[in-house]
């Protein structure tokens, strides 16, 4: 999961709901609206979402594809709700944008040149096709002839090259530059000004581009290729530093997707009209209106038909509205997990590597394992999230069905076992709480984020669970910015933090090195070991191009992390999205083969709840 790991940010203002401050939606974020769709082997069960137990649901009962009932009418217009209590930033170009809300706006009018399947592997079904050379380092891309920008100009190989040149330029102020680009031959020379062009990128013809990467890894096929061109005929004469604030990004954004932007009320709404010239074919709908709706009003808007679709839906509002008569709920497993991390060292700023400290308070693996045994995440998922989040077992979530090891049970809730482990490891009870094996006092500081209805009781629940096995745990709740500052976002770890609760949205590529590698700043637990290094390296080595081999490597890694417990996953998540019943041909998730241009409606007006 190399790319696109984003912290789940819980804004204190969002009392009912959470959003992802997606630092990076780079390759292919934006489920929801994006054509290259869905994922996840889910059995489709029709009809009512009946809870098994009172108030409990399971993601397995949801389909990620809308059932089509009725005949489409010609044209029509729909309203799409962007559920957020902040306005969208309005940086409407994949090359510069970073926020998840913007990605939802972008998904309607622009798209990736390459499409991908449900395992997130690039396919040849998109606006461009690709071929890989023998050694796996050189890619040749061919953009289809009928792929044109909204202004009618063709999307060219030069546009694609230009995107690379802008992002890797030192004046670029967006969030995209990183290992994906430094892996291209000649990028460093270009960035330092030693070369005018990136030597690894060659424009072979109007529609043909060739990129040579330094290292061939299986990650290249799952998102490490930059697939968003930048219209050179518009941006070509602009200063790079001024591009992201230009009107071509903010006011009159351009793309080559199924719809084009007609008007924008900044931060609030966007009106799209169909792009009749869309390369897959003329879209069914005439018009799409996107508007930001507050999580507090989303149910009302859905019931009244004020919106047909939404990008996300607050889970806590689902049980009360599970039987809303005018919508069908779609569900998909989220590419994310929540976890508890243990501080095992510091960040070595000089060498840019983690520096594990064998004397850290949490250095004893028995203590960490006991703490995992002590928490009942099954019940947490059921009670707090109605079963729509559930006990996590390994560090690769089931959103990656190929690599998630479903046979691995993780570590089960077992208070007796936890006590036994601690007893055997020498943590003796001295009154209410246990001491360290050497007899000194053991006080563990637990840092968690505020925000969201559930954040506070959930953190408190964990503290209670640890108290119950005799561990003296102090809870400190801080807001998002302070939280990441203190667990070492800038390399300066707060030594007073021993345990923390965080969450990651994982990228479409499964490689976990960006989170658990020795040189990863975001390896907040500061855990490193040679075995871990070996497994992570093997996972992206050439032999890992063979999926079965790669699976075996990551299976081993998942088990290894369960034995070492530098962090432990707590919950997997699902995404539930209601869709008005008049909508046809819609799906969420990746690799569904259902595209936005096919989207249609069965009647002029949305169904209204009874």
């Amino acid at each position, binding site marked *: 999961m190399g790319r696109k790991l984003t912290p789940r940010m819980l804004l204190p203002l969002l009392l009912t709901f959470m959003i992802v401050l997606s630092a990076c939606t780079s390759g292919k974020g934006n489920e929801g609206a994006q054509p290259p769709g869905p994922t996840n082997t889910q059995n489709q069960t029709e009809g009512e979402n009946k809870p098994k137990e009172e108030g409990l649901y399971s993601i397995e009962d949801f389909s990620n594809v809308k059932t089509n009932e009725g005949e489409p009418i010609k044209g029509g217009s729909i309203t799409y709700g962007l559920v957020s209590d902040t306005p969208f930033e309005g940086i409407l170009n994949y090359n510069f944008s970073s926020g998840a809300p913007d990605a939802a706006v972008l998904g309607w009018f622009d798209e990736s040149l390459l499409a991908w399947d449900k395992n997130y592997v690039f396919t040849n079904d998109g606006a461009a096709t690709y071929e890989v050379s023998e050694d796996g380092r050189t890619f040749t891309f061919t953009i289809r002839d009928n792929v044109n920008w909204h202004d009618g100009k063709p999307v060219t190989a030069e546009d694609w090259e230009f995107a690379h040149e802008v992002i890797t330029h030192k004046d670029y102020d967006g969030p995209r530059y990183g290992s994906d680009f430094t892996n291209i031959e000649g990028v460093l020379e270009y960035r330092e000004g030693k070369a005018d062009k990136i030597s690894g990128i060659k424009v072979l013809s109007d529609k043909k581009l060739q990129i040579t990467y330094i290292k061939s890894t299986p990650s290249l096929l799952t998102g490490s290729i930059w697939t968003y061109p930048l219209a050179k005929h518009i941006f070509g004469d602009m200063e790079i530093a001024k591009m992201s604030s230009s009107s071509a990004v903010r006011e009159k954004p351009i793309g080559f997707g199924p719809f084009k932007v007609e008007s924008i009320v900044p931060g609030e709404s966007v009106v799209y009209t169909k792009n009749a010239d869309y390369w897959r074919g003329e879209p069914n709908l005439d018009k799409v209106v996107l508007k930001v709706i507050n999580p507090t009003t989303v149910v009302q808007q859905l019931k009244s038909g004020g919106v047909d679709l939404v990008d996300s839906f607050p889970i*806590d509002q689902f049980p009360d509205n599970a039987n809303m008569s005018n919508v069908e709920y779609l569900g998909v497993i989220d590419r994310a997990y929540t976890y508890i991390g243990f501080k095992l060292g510091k960040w070595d700023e000089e060498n840019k590597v983690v520096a594990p400290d064998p004397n850290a308070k949490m250095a004893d693996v028995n203590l960490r394992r006991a703490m995992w045994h002590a928490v009942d995440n099954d019940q947490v998922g059921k009670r707090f999230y109605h079963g729509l989040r559930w006990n996590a077992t390994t560090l690769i979530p089931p959103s990656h069905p190929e690599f998630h090891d479903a046979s691995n049970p993780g570590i089960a809730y077992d208070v007796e076992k936890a006590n036994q482990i601690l007893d055997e490891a020498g943590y003796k009870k001295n009154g209410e709480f246990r001491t360290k094996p050497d007899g000194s006092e053991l006080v563990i500081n637990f840092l968690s984020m505020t925000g969201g209805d*559930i954040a506070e009781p959930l953190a408190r629940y964990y503290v209670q669970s640890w108290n119950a096995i005799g561990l003296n745990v102090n*809870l400190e*709740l*801080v807001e998002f910015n302070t939280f990441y500052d203190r667990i070492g976002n800038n390399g300066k770890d707060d030594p007073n933090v021993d345990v923390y609760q965080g969450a990651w949205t994982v990228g479409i590529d499964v490689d976990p090195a960006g989170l658990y590698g020795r040189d990863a700043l975001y390896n907040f637990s500061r855990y490193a070991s040679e075995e871990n290094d070996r497994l992570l390296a093997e996972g992206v080595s050439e032999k890992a191009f063979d999926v079965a081999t790669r699976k075996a490597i990551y299976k081993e890694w998942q088990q290894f992390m369960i034995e070492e417990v530098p962090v432990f996953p707590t919950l997997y998540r699902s995404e539930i999205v209601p869709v008005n019943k008049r909508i046809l041909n819609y799906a969420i998730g990746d690799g569904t083969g259902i595209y936005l241009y096919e989207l249609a409606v069965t009647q002029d007006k949305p169904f209204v709840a009874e």
Partner: protein
Amino acid sequence: MDKASRLVEDEVYEPSASPSSWQILWREIKRDKLALASLIFLGIVVAAVYGVSLILDQKQIVTVDLFALYQPPSSKFWLGTDYGGRDVFGQLIIGTRNSLSIGIIVTVLTGVIGILAGLISGYFGGTVDNVAMRVVDFFMILPTLMIVIAFVAAVPKYSVVSFSLIMTAFLWMGIARLIRSKTLQERELEYVKASRTLGSSHLKIMFTQVLPNLSSIIIVTMTLNLAANIGLESGLSFLGFGFPESTPSLGTLVSYARNPQTLEFRWWIWLPASLLILVLMLSINNVGQALKRATDARQRRG
């Protein structure tokens, strides 16, 4: 939020020169039935809240119970439970105590600072007064709400103490200005001059002679300020910039109503707190207004 204090400043007070102003105020209150009822109600609430919170097992109240989320009111949970399975009634008691306490602390702190600043500035006049009033002027023009929010976000180890200090820092000016103008008038009076010629020290005159003469105004202002401060605290907590999240407060309970599910189906979480804030502020205001009318009336008469 600070309309109460504003109105008080706008009034131009005449000197009230009775040392037994406590008794006079009490007599006036007794005469005003509404104010008396409010005062009794307040007394009961305060006694109940502080009394019950002594008995209540506070640890029990903040204990998360996974199997009792969102329980409606019952004999076990008088006001049901919240999203953490915690007793709302207990939180309401503790929240009221916390909100009252911080209201009182901030009122007293602002009172002390304001009175000191006002007394010194008004009594000595001249340069001291000039400097002090420029400082007050500066604080007065600050957009208080924004600055307090920014400060709350800026403090690294945020706690109840830092919260009350932040509020104090931006709320002491009203009373300072009022006391100053009163002191200015007061010091021109004969008794001050007489005292001075008799060789009394400035300190003595300020605190044993001028201050007691201002006591009824101080009581009135502080009462109204108390209501305003509780309002501000609950407002800030509502926005998420008040009490730390783990500390129950009335504003936090109300803020749960931002969740439409809670607003529509779980009235027991937010409605009691809202009503309590309303009634509390109404009562405190009633008492304060009655006192104010009393002092005003006395001035007119006298």
